[in-house]
């Protein structure tokens, strides 16, 4: 089983992608399975670091939190752009010390931070594990550190570490 499916998650995602792009018929499921299994075996030759998911239960919670935050900050940033001349707004950099070390966790955090309008991932220093963020509407630095650390990092560490 391990030999046939070295990366079960990758195989499953490829199969789902194949079925979504084509039709949900037994022929396509079979063809998709063959392609997914051979592709993940090719991937195994590259020997990438294998992500380990420790707590599946926290994933839906994280998705819900992030979806709500993206919607909220979309509206907030749109409002700030439209009323640019009337509101005083300061944007600036925030340095955040991270405890998360897992590579997959960090890339998911990068996706979250970049997909949330108003925050942009600028630089990650792996030696000191600090993250440099640029915040569009910077009122209180501590608030942003708190947001990243308690809202996202805690859940990501539960899932990946």
């Amino acid at each position, binding site marked *: 089983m391990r030999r046939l499916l070295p990366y079960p998650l990758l195989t499953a995602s490829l199969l789902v*992608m194949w079925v*979504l*792009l084509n039709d949900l018929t037994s022929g396509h499921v079979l063809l998709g399975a063959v392609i997914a299994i051979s592709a993940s075996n090719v991937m195994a030759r590259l020997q990438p670091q294998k992500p380990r998911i420790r707590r599946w239960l926290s994933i839906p919670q994280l998705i819900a939190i992030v979806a709500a935050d*993206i*919607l909220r900050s*979309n509206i907030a*940033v*749109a409002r700030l*752009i*439209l009323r*640019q001349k009337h509101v005083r707004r300061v*944007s600036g*950099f925030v*340095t955040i010390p991270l405890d998360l070390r897992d590579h997959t966790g960090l*890339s998911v955090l*990068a*996706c979250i*931070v*970049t*997909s*949330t*309008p*108003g*925050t*942009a*991932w*600028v*630089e990650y*220093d792996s*030696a*000191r594990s*600090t993250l*440099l963020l*640029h915040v*569009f509407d910077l009122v209180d630095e501590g608030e942003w550190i708190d947001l990243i650390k308690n809202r996202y990092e805690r859940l990501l560490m539960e899932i990946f570490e």
Partner: protein
Amino acid sequence: MSHAADIPVWAAVLTAFFVLVGAGFTVIGALGLLRLKTFYERMHAPTLGSTWGAAGVLIGSIIFFSVLQSRPVLHEALIAVFVTVTTPVTLMLLARAALYRDRAERNPEVPGRAKAQSDDE
């Protein structure tokens, strides 16, 4: 190809709503890109287009084609996934290039390298 007139009113209204929301956010994002003053501020504006801008149009597309073909059409979800996964790559590339330039020019608005900062402390 498709018969847009055949689709029921509720689906047409929902589709129109989501497409308009998506287009609206994209326009506002483009406006921000045009109007904001600094590079780092302008970086935030197109994110509107790649999140709710894209999501609105994709949800509209899912509703429209699912109703029209009377089966769930979900491959738009793949577009959303790939947009989300690839945006950080371009954004980080641009941000770090800007940061590198500003540090080389010793722009005081930009924080110095993390290492140098800690040595000063």
